């Protein structure tokens, strides 16, 4: 069977996009919540 590297890289690339996208979403949400907390003050 041919190696089909394009399928392999598509699968890994898609997984990387999903995981990095979620990580960025979490980081953005944490940052906005921290900013809100700072504006509120003690």
């Amino acid at each position, binding site marked *: 069977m041919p190696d089909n590297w394009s399928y392999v890289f598509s699968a890994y690339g898609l*997984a990387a996009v*999903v995981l990095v996208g979620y990580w960025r979403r979490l980081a953005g949400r944490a940052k906005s919540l*921290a900013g809100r*907390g700072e504006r509120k003050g003690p």
Partner: protein
Amino acid sequence: MAARALGWLAVLALIAGLGAAFGYAPREAVQGNVQRIMYLHVPAVLTAYLAFALVFLGSVGYLLSRRAGWDRLALAAAEPGVLFTGITIASGSIWGKPTWGTWWTWDARLTSTAVLFLVYVGYLLLRGMVDEPDRRARAAAVVGILGAANIPIVHFSVTWWRALHQPAAILGPGSAPMPLWMKMALAINWLAFTLVFAYFLTRRMEIARLEQEA
């Protein structure tokens, strides 16, 4: 600080996993290099099982104690669980095209995995639809408990029904039919995905706590 260390550990484990999948593990004799998708596909589904088992645990814990921490655990596990199930379905579909000749077939394993994905997408949608915290947590907990019944159905579907999908490589009856270095590469990637999940879980639980306090 601990979450940051966990994140870096997960990154290192992912790099080791990629090294194992593309360097250490040999080219499979029948399928060729396309079989390397297994080192992504199998750890992704095993991590999804773990995530949904924690949703179950958090849901039971909330219904028994009514403590918000259990609900936060269930929510924080459900989101990455859906992501890992999505990765499982997409990578399986991409792997299926060159090996089975089709992107999708209504095989028992594929269908039950799609149902699992939709149940937990529904779980997250339900959480977004109910405003009152206790009502939301109770309704979500019921779905989280019922949804977990699908995990053994997904895993054992290849044993219970005639399926195009191959038998379970891990957690199946008998030893996995593959050489030691393939098992090692799979184990390293499984560990890496578990660490990524643990990092996401920790961060998401902290965000959920801050959201409740805001």
